Each structure stands twice: as C-alpha cells, then as structure tokens.
C-alpha cells in the first residue's frame, strides 16, 4: 500500500471514529422523514405519491438490502457518507490548488460543520450523500473526467436532485472563464443528467400519477419553502439558523474570496443561481450547506495563513458550536459562547490576512491548458 493510500485510510478511520462517537452521543430526533424514506426504499414506486421526495428512493432502496434496524443502517450511512464528503473536500481543495495543510483543515472544518453534524443527529435524509457527491463530482469534472461524474450524478439524482447541481456549476464556471474548449462537453453532461431526472419525473407522473402535492416547495409563485420558513420562524430565529449554518466560515469565506484564484471565484459565482434556487425551494438554513465544497476551501485560504494555534483555536470553537447546534449534543455547553469566540478569532485572522499583501492568485490545476 502506498503512503498516500495509507494516509487516506488513516484519515477515513479518524473521521469514522469521530462521527461514530457523535452518533452514539447524539439524542434521538423527534421528527424525521424516516417512514417516508423507508417506505420509498421498500416499495421503490409508490403509486399516487404526492410529495417532492417521491423520487428520492436510492438511499432507502440501498439500505433495505442490508440487515439491521433502520436507525443503525441510516446512522452508518450518515457516518460513511459524511466521511466520504470530508475526504472529497480535502481532495477537491488540493485540485483547487490549496496547500496540503489547507486541505487538511478543509477536511476537518467540513467534517465538523453544521450540515454533517445535523445529519448525524437526524440521518433520515439524502443530505450526507449529496455532501459527498457535491465535492466528488466537482473534483472529477475539474480533473477533466466526464463519463464517471455524469454516471454518478445520473444515479445520485434518485437520492436527491442536487446531484445535478455540480455539473451545472462547473459548466457555468467554464463559461464564465470563457473556456470554450471544455464548456460544451460539460454542458452535455449537465443537460444529460437533468434530462434523466426530468424524464424520470415525467414517466412517474404519467404512469404512476406522481405529483408534487401541496408541498410548499412546489408553490413557486408564492415564495415556495422560503415563504413557509419565514412565516414559521421569527426573524430572530431565522437569523440565528442562518448564522449557525456556516458560523465563522461566512467571515473566512468572504475574506478568502480576495485570495482565491479567478477559477475558484468563477466556481463560486457559478454556484449562486443554484444556491438561490435551493434556498428558495428548501429550508434555507439546511439547503446552503450543500455548497460546503466551495465555501470551505475558499475559507481555508485564510486559515492556511494563520499560525497553528490560531487556526486550531478557531476550529475548536467552530466545532464546539456545531456539536451543539448540529449534532444537538446535550453534553456540550451552549453554542453561543464558542461561536462568538470563533468569530472573534476569525476576525483577527482576517485582519491579519488583510494586512499582508495578497499573494498571487492560485490557479486550478488541469482546468485550463
């Protein structure tokens, strides 16, 4: 086994161990989509299904192939998919030109972010797989692969529609960079995956009377899920939920954009339409984590410039806040203080970075001739 493979396995073991401990300590959620996903997994096709999630059968179907209780199977899936997501973010960070140190930070900041930890608390969701696919597909596409990411996305859309998003993001980014050599093939991949999703939806509607039902996400002209979310949450709660999602990463991301290469900025810019759409049709505080694979690497450009103590201090406070907010661990103290401390240290980090003259932008390897 090569040294790189050994390192990879070591990181996987660490991630699985950390996630496993969190799953054991996390309380049981009161409200989940368990019944829905398990039913879809057992029956694959549910005639007259009227929900936006009707076609999200992949994970339920896959997990039904294994013995064991639902909670064990879904928690194991969440642990493994979250670990895969963190490893994929590390690899993507390297592809995006970040240093190995920054890539390691990216892996841990990603692993202990709000999204993965919330999925460990409530594993009955397709989110962990989407977290992994987002980073993995983007990495494959940036490395010039077409067939494999298209096939993976075409399968992934049966877990959640977001699987098509990375293809569109990379395609739009290529167009923004006026990279007309790669943009057409990327567009072909994105169109094909989207067509697979639309065709499956149309076929299920015609043959099995599928519909979107009265789900607010489908009420596009009246604010979709965003309107429902805003109605049900007070402005204060909505703000807290949004801040908690990325925490100090918002600050580091904003500062990191200044240091990012034109290619990385193009990717960020290209993800805005998908992010806006997703935040509109889904619960915004959860939807935006899907874009972790861009937010985290950009933020790590700032973390990478900080000294060891400062970088790990920010991480510890950030992770502590998320263990409470995301994984809902009762043993962890209130998230307010660690989050505030992470912001203070993050701000210091940003100020220091700002004072330094920005380095030459980093280029994405292999994305352009």
């Amino acid at each position, binding site marked *: 086994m090569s040294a790189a493979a050994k390192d990879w396995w070591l990181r996987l073991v660490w991630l699985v161990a950390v996630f496993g401990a969190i799953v054991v300590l996390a309380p049981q959620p009161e409200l989940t989509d368990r019944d829905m996903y398990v039913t879809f997994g057992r029956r694959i096709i*549910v*005639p*007259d299904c009227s929900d936006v999630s009707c076609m999200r059968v992949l994970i339920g179907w896959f997990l039904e192939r294994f013995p064991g209780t639902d909670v064990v199977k879904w928690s194991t899936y969440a642990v493994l998919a979250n670990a895969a997501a963190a490893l994929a973010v590390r690899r993507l960070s390297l592809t995006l030109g970040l240093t190995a140190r920054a890539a390691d930070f990216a892996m841990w900041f990603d692993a202990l972010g709000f999204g993965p930890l919330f999925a460990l608390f409530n594993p009955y969701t397709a989110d962990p797989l989407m977290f992994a696919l987002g980073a993995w597909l983007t990495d494959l596409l940036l490395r010039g692969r*077409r067939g494999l990411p298209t096939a993976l996305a075409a399968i992934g859309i049966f877990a959640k529609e977001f699987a098509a998003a990375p293809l569109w993001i990379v395609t739009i980014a290529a167009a923004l960079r006026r990279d007309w050599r790669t943009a*057409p*093939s990327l567009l*072909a991949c994105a*169109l*094909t995956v989207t*067509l697979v999703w*639309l*065709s499956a939806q*149309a076929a299920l*509607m*015609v*043959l*099995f*009377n599928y519909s979107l039902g009265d789900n607010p996400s489908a009420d596009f002209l009246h604010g979709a899920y965003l309107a429902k979310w805003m109605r049900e949450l007070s402005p204060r709660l909505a703000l807290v939920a949004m801040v908690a999602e990325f925490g100090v990463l918002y600050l580091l991301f904003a500062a990191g954009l200044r240091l990012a290469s034109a290619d990385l900025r193009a990717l960020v810019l290209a993800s805005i339409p998908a992010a806006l759409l997703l935040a509109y049709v889904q619960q915004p505080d959860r939807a935006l984590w899907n874009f972790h694979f861009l937010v985290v690497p950009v933020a790590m450009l700032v973390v990478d410039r900080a000294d060891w103590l400062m970088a790990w201090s920010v991480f510890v406070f950030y992770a502590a806040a998320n263990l409470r907010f995301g994984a809902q661990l009762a043993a962890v103290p209130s998230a307010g203080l660690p989050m505030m401390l992470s912001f203070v240290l993050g701000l210091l980090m940003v100020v220091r970075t700002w004072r330094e003259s920005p380095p030459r932008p980093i280029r994405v390897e292999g994305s352009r001739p």
Partner: protein
Amino acid sequence: MTRRQLAAVFLVNAIGYLCVATILVDRGYRRQLAARTGVNAYGYRGVARVGKTSGERRLVVVGGSFAFGSGLQYADTIPALMSGPLGRQPQPVHVANLSEPGAGAGTFVRALNDYAYLLPDVILIVDGYDPPSGLPPGGGRRASAVFRDIGYLPALPSGLVSPAAVSTDVDPLFDDSRHEDPGGCAGLFAERCDAMAAAVEWGLARKTAVVVVTPPAVSRRQAAEQRALLTALAGRFGSDDRLHHVNLQVPGALEDGLSGARRITREAAESCARQLVAEVLTILNGR
C-alpha cells in the same frame, strides 16, 4: 469527446427535452380539462388514482351517457354526488366513474378490463339508454393509442368530447311506437342482456360486489327490458349474494335539456345518489 459524439449527445438531449416538455404541457392542459369536465389523466371521472392504499375502499361505475352525466355539470352527476358522502366515511370510499358518453353495454367489460388496476370493492353497472353497441363520440378514450398502451389519456389533442356537447342517444328499441314484440332477453334485447351479464360476470369472477342499476325508464319498452334483464340475471347469478340491484325509478326524474337531449334533474340525481350511497355502504359495511 469528439465533435460528432458531442453533436449526437445534444441531439438526443433536444429530442428528450421536447418529449418531456410535451408531457408537462399535456399535464397542465389535462388539469384544466379535469377541472372543467372531471375527466382525469387516466380517462375517467373522479380523483385520479392508479394504486390503492391499505384500508382504502373503491367504487367504480360503468355505464353510458346516463352514468357519465351527459349534459350536466360534473358536480351534478350521480357519481360525483356520491363521492362526497362516501369520501367522508371513516374508511373513505373512492369513486371512479369509468362511464363514457354514448358507450353501450357492449363496452362495459372492456372498460372494466382497462381499469382492473383500480381493484374495485363494488362495481355499479348502470343499464342506461344507449344502444348496446353504442360507442363514445370519436371512439372515446380507446381511440388514443397512448391510453391503450399505458393507460394515460393525453389531453393533447382532447380525446373526450366535452360532456355538454353530447346528446343522449336513446336505444331505438326503447321506442314505444314500435310494433314488434321485443321478446325480452331472448329476443330483441338479447345483445343488451348478454353484455350486461358479461359485465356482471366480470365482477363476480373477481369476488367483487356488483350492483346492477336500472335508471328511470324512458318508455314502457325500457321498463319491460329492465324487468327481463333482472329476471335473466337472477336466473344466471341468483345464487351469488354479491349481486345486488338498485332501481332508480324517481318520478319526474328526466327533463329535456337545452340541446333537446333528455337528462336527469338535479333533484332526481341527488335522490338517486342517496339511494346508491345507502346501498353501497350496506354492502361494504356488511362484508
């Protein structure tokens, strides 16, 4: 990927997107049509269902113009009036009206076969006024190859004629001015009786309760036909307690519509619906 391969992928995508767009437009148009006529994407009147949930009970209605409710607003038709009280039962009953305007008894078995997936608990077979060999205008839903193949009735182009434009075509054999002796089910009414018996047999063979419904008679000859039919059915299936009969003889039930066609009055339709709901609930709750 070569330029040629890329062009092929884009071409396949273009065709695919065109197909999906057509389906989505069709679904949208079908929703509008369904709101106006009650005919859903699967070609029957009622809330569209292709599956059956556990605990759900289902009533299907087969018939011609009378059961379809030609000349009436959808909400005023007998099956639509039944769907309210039946849907409010502790164990709701879903009503699917498979009738088509102009459809004679000869089409009933075909309709039941087309919708066998609905798994009815009770079948209402309405012996209406249309000639037994009668067909819906333009061939009805079966004129659509898509419907015949997959059960979905495209709205583009509209396969079903708007109910308001359909006149009730009364079987000429019901005309009292005719002189010849109809001779009951062994005579002139043989085709009608055989078709009705085949529809009844379809339901009973599937262990489903069947209710033969005789609507208000338009003539003495039709009243005689109804009696002959009931006698014939009793002779053939009399020992089967799943076979039931409801006689909808409401005085003054029929009136002439604006188009000159005869149609049931709103009051009579409500009375008929109440009678049928009571019978259906007796059957379902007694099982």
